[in-house]
């Protein structure tokens, strides 16, 4: 593993991209960042600007409004930037696919590196998803 990749896996700065979720997934993400789970142990930190992000956490079903924004956000991020789809909604639209406002799933808008299923996924599941992603990066 080269130095660049190693440093990346040791220091993941996440940016929270909420694409019209029901807000439950976001609350679970915030749970992950609380002292109880303490992801700063692994160098994971929440950042304010997408330019600083290494991982985009996408929640919710992108609709006509947010799909464009998500695309723009991904384009604005400094590469390498990975996308993690959190929750059933981001994983494919789930029960909202027949909705009038639905256009396409997240992974057809931006390349998704990992999916964390669940409605909402538990904090443990989110951490496991991120860890699996980091392990796959190492290979």
């Amino acid at each position, binding site marked *: 593993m080269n*130095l660049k990749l190693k*440093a990346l896996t040791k220091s993941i700065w996440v940016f929270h991209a909420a694409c019209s979720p029901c807000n439950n997934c976001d609350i679970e993400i915030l749970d992950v960042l609380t002292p109880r789970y303490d992801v700063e142990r692994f160098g994971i930190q929440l950042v*304010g*600007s997408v*330019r*600083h992000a290494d991982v985009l956490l996408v929640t919710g079903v992108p609709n006509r409004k947010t799909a464009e924004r998500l695309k723009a956000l991904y384009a604005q991020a400094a590469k390498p930037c990975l996308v993690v789809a959190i929750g059933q909604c981001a994983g494919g639209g789930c029960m909202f696919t027949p909705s009038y406002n639905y256009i396409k799933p997240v992974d057809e808008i931006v390349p998704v590196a990992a999916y964390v299923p669940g409605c909402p996924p538990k904090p443990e599941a989110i951490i496991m998803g991120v860890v699996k992603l980091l392990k796959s990066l190492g290979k």
Partner: protein
Amino acid sequence: MKDLFYYLIFPGFLFTGALGIFASWFDRKITARVQWRKGPPLLQPLYDLIKLLGKELILPANSSLWTFLVFPIVGLAASALASSIIWLAFLFPEKGFVGDVFVVIYLMGLPAISLIVASFASANPLASQGASREIKLLLSYELPFILAALVVLIKAQSIKLGGLIFYQAVNGLGIGSFSGAIAFIVALLCSQAKLGLVPFDMAEAETEIMAGAYIEFSGPLLAVFRLTKFMMLVAAPLFLVGLFLGNVAAGPGAFLLLILKYLAVVLLTVLIRNTNPRLRIDQAMKFFWGPVTLLAAVAVTLALFGK
């Protein structure tokens, strides 16, 4: 040749950078312990830096490119120079030049100015919001900071950092007197604002204006800013130690004592940062121009009467 060594390796760029990385870890670890967490591993700030160096550098389309690229480096160079001058005053107090206290004060203002210029150059509305807050903050804390430094200058009757440290080695610490103690509190608050730490971090309020002044910086440029912050985390507390808690760092024991004093000041800073919520910019200005400047003026008056 020797000066270049001082500036680039010890005690300048390399040593200060390494100590700054350690101080940043110390800050995060203490913060974590205060919040009942375990906290990041020792090398975390270094990992962050290396990662940032390996990432893409994005140049915003409307930015004025040269300013955007050059000013972060100006700030880094200034902070490294400031910290090497301060270190050298501890190591060789008889050297140095007359007025180096003022040079250090000005040099420590440069990182803030370079951040302001660079973020205005990035042509982002939130960045200019952050930059304008940084300007106001700079205007509000510089006056009490200089007044607090003046207290020690009056006592020691010297405008050389080395002279101040000598004076304290002979006559007891600067913080020991009544005026010195007040001035130390003032200077501590000002250095908190200088470092952009929590009650005064409105320039990069990440939950409010999304990292503000830093919003457009990515990859290597962000790493430069981070390193500047690490260096300032060494320079500003060390300057306080020089003014108020100075000792001549001749032997290894004295040097260790110096580092311990420095870490104690950093610890105070971290505790302030963890026990206060962020102020609005107008509150911060009122705070610095009102009570803090008043306190500093009282301290200067007391010092003139020899208290």
